[in-house]
């Protein structure tokens, strides 16, 4: 009956301050993930009902500051200014107050209805830090609520405060911090100028705009520049710069930051008592091992290996179980459907299509559980620290390493994992490196070809070489991109190594569940669609002449008087032959023939062309298509595919090598291209990239083929 009154709350705070824990603790299951307009930054929004209020909570991205330099900070600022949330809750980490309060000061400057949630109070008490909350409240002017989001302590009190603030029952004394005299003078001057500008919104916060102008804030610059008053403001800014230069031998921006630090340090001196002898913490000891000159790299590789093992070794039986379940499903469904087209659509199209999406789910869930464990425990930042030098040499960031390694398993989760990278150009470069990391689905192709044409000892070397070639071309691609089109905006490596924390199981599971849902929703529809399209391409159009031939020949065989086993065998051979001819007749077959002139220089004929086309659905399909198409003229089950390939005149050692290189390098699969598009946000770069990939594959295969012809 009672109508809900709504309150919008924005959570702002430093990375690792526990914003997400608070967000989860408050909203529970009522949340959804979207994107902030125009950027690929996730926007987490949720709601809860409390005392007749519907409280909407928006989790803003973690930021250290409110500069216009990073998309996270711009998003945070814009949300606070444009969406005007009723209450801004600044989540502050109690164990690292000084840095956290730097953001609080900047939020104060924005004169919003601010509430400070002092998080991790349990750790604060454990460490013996005492905080004089009353004095801190007096200095900052907003109420401070001690909470512990992990243990769900103090949440009701926080909610009470949120309600009171939104009802106006708590007065927020919008304290101002006083900057150096010269800065204050300039602020006043500019604020007055802005106030006199009639075209400017009267409700705008003139003091804040003035501060930002002095801080050289390009966003505010462009906002104010269009007004006539700009001429005067520019003069005032010039004057301020000169004065700060003479009196403080620095610029206004640095001076303002120094003043903020001075304010926060003063507040710390007044209100916070640290325990006397701060002993080396457990974090320091762990770091002494984990970041050690000698042990650092081995530990790093051990961790990466463990994540890889967890994902792909533990995931494998689950994956096989799912594949088996889908196989069982087709077997049970098939007899109930009329033979022919309908059965084929359901069994080979829909069920195997859905199956091919779902089988990857265990891998994705396990990988993201592992990754969110690393992220939340604090090791991820350290891993980036250890490996950054290598990655930086190719223009990448230390954090690019984990997604790249994941690419050896499957490109899709790997591309999704690049979200840990903040800068767009770093993300793009990493995403475009991933397809060259030879994924698990390409392995069956190598196993087949290397096994068929090389003795076992050599086959392993060949496969190793293929992997190495992929890594080299991938890194080269990254370097090429970063030194040409993606030259700008590399993420600086200035970052914090957070203290080690034991992640809670709920948060790890929660993260994994979110990624799983995202995968099923986004990739699922794409993979499914693509698999069905390729299924259709390899089944249509059907030649009725061949169908008729099948019926005729079947009748002929039935009519002959031979032993039933021989008859069955002949029938099998016949069906395989007709099936292969149908494949040749289909759209996929025709495109294979169409492609032949293009791929002839690589040593491929139209039959390999067909496999390459169907391989777009998933790389392991290359093997099954080769199996179908090369079995022409051989009785099914008579000889193995590798024997058939070896004896085929169209296939040589050189062809096999060339094909392996091509499969390694050409477009990974439609699903990964789809996911790539989702993460990149536009089709154009993805399509250009696909052309690049094809060109690289063609050239590399050509060179391989010619060299192999010369030497083998």
């Amino acid at each position: 009956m009672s109508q809900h009154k709504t309150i919008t709350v924005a959570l702002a705070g430093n990375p690792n301050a526990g914003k997400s824990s608070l967000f989860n603790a408050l909203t529970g299951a009522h949340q959804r993930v979207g994107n902030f307009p125009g950027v690929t930054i996730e926007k987490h929004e949720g709601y809860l009902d409390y005392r007749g209020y519907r409280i909407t909570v928006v989790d803003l991205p973690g930021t250290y500051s409110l500069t216009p330099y990073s998309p996270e900070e711009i998003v945070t600022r814009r949300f606070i200014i444009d969406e005007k949330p009723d209450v801004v809750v600044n989540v502050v980490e109690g164990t690292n107050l000084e840095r956290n309060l730097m953001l609080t000061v900047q939020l104060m400057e924005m004169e919003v209805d601010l509430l400070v949630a002092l998080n991790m109070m349990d750790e604060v008490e454990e460490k013996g830090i005492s905080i004089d909350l009353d004095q801190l409240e007096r200095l900052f002017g907003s109420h401070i609520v001690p909470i512990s989001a992990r243990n769900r302590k103090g949440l009701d009190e926080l909610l009470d405060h949120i309600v009171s603030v939104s009802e106006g029952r708590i007065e927020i004394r919008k304290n101002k911090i006083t900057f150096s005299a010269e800065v204050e003078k300039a602020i006043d001057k500019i604020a007055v100028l802005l106030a006199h500008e009639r075209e400017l919104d009267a409700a705008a916060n003139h003091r804040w705009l003035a501060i930002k102008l002095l801080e050289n804030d390009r966003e505010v610059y462009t906002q104010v520049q269009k007004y006539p008053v700009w001429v005067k403001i520019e003069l005032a800014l010039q004057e301020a710069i000169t004065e700060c230069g003479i009196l403080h031998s620095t610029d206004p921006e640095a001076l303002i930051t120094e003043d903020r630090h001075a304010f926060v340090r003063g507040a710390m001196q007044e209100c916070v008592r640290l325990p006397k002898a701060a002993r080396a913490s457990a974090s320091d000891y762990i770091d002494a091992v984990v970041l050690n000159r000698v042990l650092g790299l081995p530990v790093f590789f051990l961790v990466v290996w463990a994540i890889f093992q967890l994902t792909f070794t533990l995931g494998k039986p689950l994956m096989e179980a799912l594949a088996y379940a889908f196989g069982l499903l087709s077997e049970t469904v098939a007899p109930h459907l009329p033979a022919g087209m309908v059965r084929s659509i359901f069994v080979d199209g829909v069920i195997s299509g859905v199956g091919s999406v779902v089988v990857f789910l265990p891998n994705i869930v396990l990988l993201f559980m592992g990754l969110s464990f690393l992220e939340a425990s604090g090791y991820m930042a350290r891993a980036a620290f250890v490996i950054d030098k290598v990655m930086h040499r190719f223009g990448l960031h230390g954090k690019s390493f984990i997604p790249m390694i994941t690419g050896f398993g499957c490109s899709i989760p790997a591309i999704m994992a690049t979200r840990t990278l903040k800068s767009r150009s770093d993300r793009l470069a990493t995403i475009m490196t991933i397809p060259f990391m030879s994924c698990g689905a390409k392995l069956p192709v190598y196993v087949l070809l290397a096994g068929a044409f090389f003795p076992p000892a050599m086959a392993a070397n060949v496969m190793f070489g293929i992997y190495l070639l992929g890594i080299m071309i991938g890194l080269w691609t990254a370097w090429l991109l970063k030194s040409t089109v993606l030259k700008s905006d590399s993420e600086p490596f200035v970052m914090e190594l957070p203290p080690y924390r034991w992640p809670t199981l709920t948060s790890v599971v929660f993260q994994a569940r979110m990624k799983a849902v995202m995968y099923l929703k986004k990739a699922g529809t794409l993979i499914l669609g693509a698999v069905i399209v390729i299924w259709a391409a390899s089944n249509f159009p059907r030649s009725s002449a061949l169908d008729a031939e099948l019926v005729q020949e079947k009748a002929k065989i039935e009519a002959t008087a031979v032993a039933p086993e021989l008859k069955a065998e002949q029938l099998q051979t016949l069906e395989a032959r007709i099936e292969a001819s149908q494949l040749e007749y289909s759209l996929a077959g025709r495109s294979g023939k169409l492609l032949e002139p293009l791929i002839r220089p690589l040593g491929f004929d139209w039959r390999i062309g067909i496999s390459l086309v169907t391989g777009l659905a998933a790389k392991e399909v290359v093997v099954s298509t080769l199996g179908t198409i090369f079995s022409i003229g051989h009785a099914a089950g008579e000889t193995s595919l590798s024997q058939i390939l070896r004896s085929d005149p169209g296939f040589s050692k050189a062809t096999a090598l060339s094909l392996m290189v091509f499969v390694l390098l050409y477009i990974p699969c439609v699903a990964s291209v789809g996911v790539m598009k989702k993460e990149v946000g536009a089709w154009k770069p993805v399509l250009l990239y696909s052309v690049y990939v094809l060109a690289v594959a063609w050239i590399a295969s050509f060179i391989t083929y010619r060299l192999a012809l010369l030497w083998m």
Partner: protein
Amino acid sequence: MKLSELKAGDRAEVTSVAAEPAVRRRLMDLGLVRGTELKVLRFAPLGDPIEVNCNGMLLTMRRNEAEGITVHILAGDEGHQHGWPGFRRRHRFGKRA
């Protein structure tokens, strides 16, 4: 002296911060302003990036980013070159320092 020229274990005070605007601002927001004391904790196993302790916070940056930070070196912290935190200045040849 540049921050990048210090050795693990050195203590120093920041005298100025220069870098491209975004990096400079990030450094300053994280506390590297004039007058801040810091301690070089270690270099990464491959020699780059560098890790410093600044007001109890562990900060990392690449060498080229550290080059823009001018510092004034304070007393070195001998016996603590390769970072085993608990053992600083203890038991040297059986004597407590």
